[in-house]
């Protein structure tokens, strides 16, 4: 159920080429807390173009970054930069992948082809976790600690604006991005039962 209220205001941006605008905004968890590390993306007709390679480092018994948004078909590298053994495993595409235990200096890669959320876990260290949000669009962002985001050069058009936070709250609404002016959105995330 959508409870968020869309507030759209046009902002002028002189630096962007014509027909594209920068979409920015704020994301809020319930009770108006700013949603840090939330994933925001606009879905429209344009398919994603995979990035060459993204790294999730394992350092100090942490996955860095913890939240990662990538377009589909992007290869993710998991180097172990700790002095201890780590393991990377996840359920992805309805099956488990497990990169096995590997020591410091070793690195392993996984290509994520299908859109969705994947929880990256370490079999050895239960406190370690990371999320990879695979999107099928080039327009995505992860909010900063104040819940702010910016997606550059979005062509004017009709989109679905999505928001996700690891606590399980989401946002999804159709928006129109108009040319010639920047767009700002406020996303109020909420639990969306299946």
């Amino acid at each position, binding site marked *: 159920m959508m409870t968020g209220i869309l507030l759209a205001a046009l902002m002028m941006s002189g630096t962007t080429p014509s027909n594209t605008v920068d979409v920015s905004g704020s994301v809020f968890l319930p009770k108006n807390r700013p949603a840090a590390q939330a994933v925001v993306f606009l879905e429209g007709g344009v398919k994603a173009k995979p990035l060459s390679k993204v790294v999730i480092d394992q350092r100090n018994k942490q996955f860095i970054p*913890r939240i990662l948004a990538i377009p589909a078909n992007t290869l993710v590298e998991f180097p172990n930069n700790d002095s201890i053994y780590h393991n990377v*495993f996840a359920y992805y595409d309805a099956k488990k992948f497990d990169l096995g235990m590997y020591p410091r200096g070793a690195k392993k890669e996984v290509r994520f082809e299908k859109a969705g959320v994947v*929880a990256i*876990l370490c079999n050895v260290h*239960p406190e370690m*976790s990371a999320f990879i949000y695979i999107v099928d669009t080039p327009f995505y962002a992860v909010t900063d600690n104040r819940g702010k985001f910016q997606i550059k050069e979005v062509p004017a058009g009709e989109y679905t604006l999505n928001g996700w936070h690891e*606590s*399980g709250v989401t946002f999804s609404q159709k928006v129109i991005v108009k040319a010639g002016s920047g767009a700002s959105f406020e996303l109020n995330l909420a639990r969306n039962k299946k």
Partner: protein
Amino acid sequence: MRASLRQKIWLLNAGIVALFSTLLLITTAYLVNRENEREVRRNVRATGAMLEHLIRERKARLMEQANLFAQVPILKACVQTGDSATVSDCANDYRQRWEVDYVLAVDRDGESIGSSGELPSHKEEARLQTGIGSALEGEDWSGIIATDKGLMLVVFVPVRVGQEPWGAFGVFSGVDSSVAYELRRATGAEVAFAHDGRVLASTLPQVSQIPTPRNTPQIVQLNNEPYFALYEPLPSVPPENALGYVVLSSYHKSMAMFYRFRLALLGVFGIALTLALLLGAVLSGRMTRSLNAVVQAARSLQQGEWPGKLPAQSSDEIGLLERVFNEMTEGLKTSQERLMAMIDIDPLTEVDNHRRFHERLIQEVKRCEQSEEPLSLLIANIDEFQKYNQREGYATGDDALRKMADCLRRHAPEWAILGRFSGDQFAVLLPACAIEETEALAETLRQAFEQESVGLTLSIGCAEYGLHSRQADGFVMAAELASSLAKQLGRNRVCRFDSFPGADANADPYQLYQFFQDGSLATIQALAAAVDAKDAYTQGHSQRVAQYACDLASYIGMAESEIELLRITGTLHDVGKIGVPDSILKKPAQLDEEERKVMETHPVLGEAIVAKAPQLTATLPGVRHHHEKYDGTGYPDGLSGEAIPLMARLLAIADTYDAMTSDRPYRKGLPAEVALSTIEKGAGTQFDPVLAPAFVAMMRARDEQKAA
């Protein structure tokens, strides 16, 4: 129902003791009961504390284990992806490892994504949802739920991926009977966990339903055993869930002390009651003994006997009653003595009355019998007092009587007993005095009274006990006869009874008195015989006179009843001769003037004697007048003609005839014909003019018959 005072006191006493004992028993029972309730409450509190501790401990352990499991990365991964087969594998693994009953994993939407074991049916879905919700919010949750199989401790913990809960993990661990046993070990009381009255776990086997009394312990029957039961909701469970535990203290065990105590109490009660009954009996007995003594005393008063003095020692009401009663008795006694004194003393003359005098006479006679001392009696008659009274008035008469009494008091010795016999008759009893002294005293009295009073004189008769009679009544009669004699001799003189018993002891005046009391013909004849026996010459005289008179009466044709009366009168006519001194009676010579006078008193004395026998009243005229003469020259009254009673006229003829024909001390008896002719001559003068010739004719006719 009527109960005596004694019974009432006794009952009251017993009642009070019984009441107090019962109160004591009830109070003890109440206190014991209260103590038992406290004990149950203590057990409940202890059990509650224990249970809370146990639950907290178990929950903490469960929580720890659950959290540990929630950290398992594979579980996290599965929760995140919803791989329920893997989750169930994990859950199974967990359940077996930690020996819990049921394990459940849910995704972040609360949907089950795997479980292990079997959750017994229950009605606690809402609470479980609360628990899951709480875990999905990142908060650990624990609780207790009731299921069909028993109580279950439940914990839900979040399964976090990173900081955020991606699901929840629940662990259910049954609180089985072992917990109840553990609690029982600690408190000694039975414990049952109950949900809505249904037993979930218990130390009492085979109990499925149980009452759940809140706040106040109740006695309940379980397995046919009584228990004090108190229910308490489980800690950290909403009260509306009706989930709690019942602590059961064995009734018998708690009451065992009281049972022992009760036996002792009953013993004390019994002893107290027995003592009270005994004490009551003694006490009431003591109280009523005094009262009964008063009642007895009052009863003896009622029956005319003076009761003994009551003790009157106690200072209580009974003592007061006794004192008052004593005083009352004393008062009555004094009053009665005063009254008795009044009765004993003649109020006018203040000498003893007849009754009292007679009493004292009897006493003196008794004493005389024992001491052999003489005892004399004088009886003084005031002469012609009747006429004096009529002439001077009764007030003056009373004065005279008082003077008489004064006179007696003055002259009689102080030990003499003075009495007023009748209106004008006084008596003086002189113990230790012989007849001579008494006569002297009588003479002194006679002279003194003659001088002191106004024209009144005394006729006094004296007698001595033993000398004249050995019977009190005869003794008095002797004095009376002497007094009558004095009167007959012309008054104002003293006479002594001077008639000694003759050959026949029956002549004793007492015997006469006895005859008069009887009054039968036999006694009258015996009396006559006694009179006649005083003198050999008069032997059979009375019988003969009676016979002659009767013959004459028959001859002239009188009625049979009259003739019978005449026979009795005839036999009695000379009875007065008892009062005539023997010296005169037996004088073998012509009597002189004085002696003749004494002799002539005998009809009046006879009348006085016969008058003592009321049944002989009809004979009195004959006795009195048998010495009257037809011409009025006879004695004692000088009647003449028809004024003389017929019986007296008949007797006069018969008497004279017998006197003439029988021998006398001074002459021989005359022949019958001489006597008859004397009578014939006396007709119309000495004798009845008709009866005298009739008698002569009868006698002559008899002679002729004899001759023929």
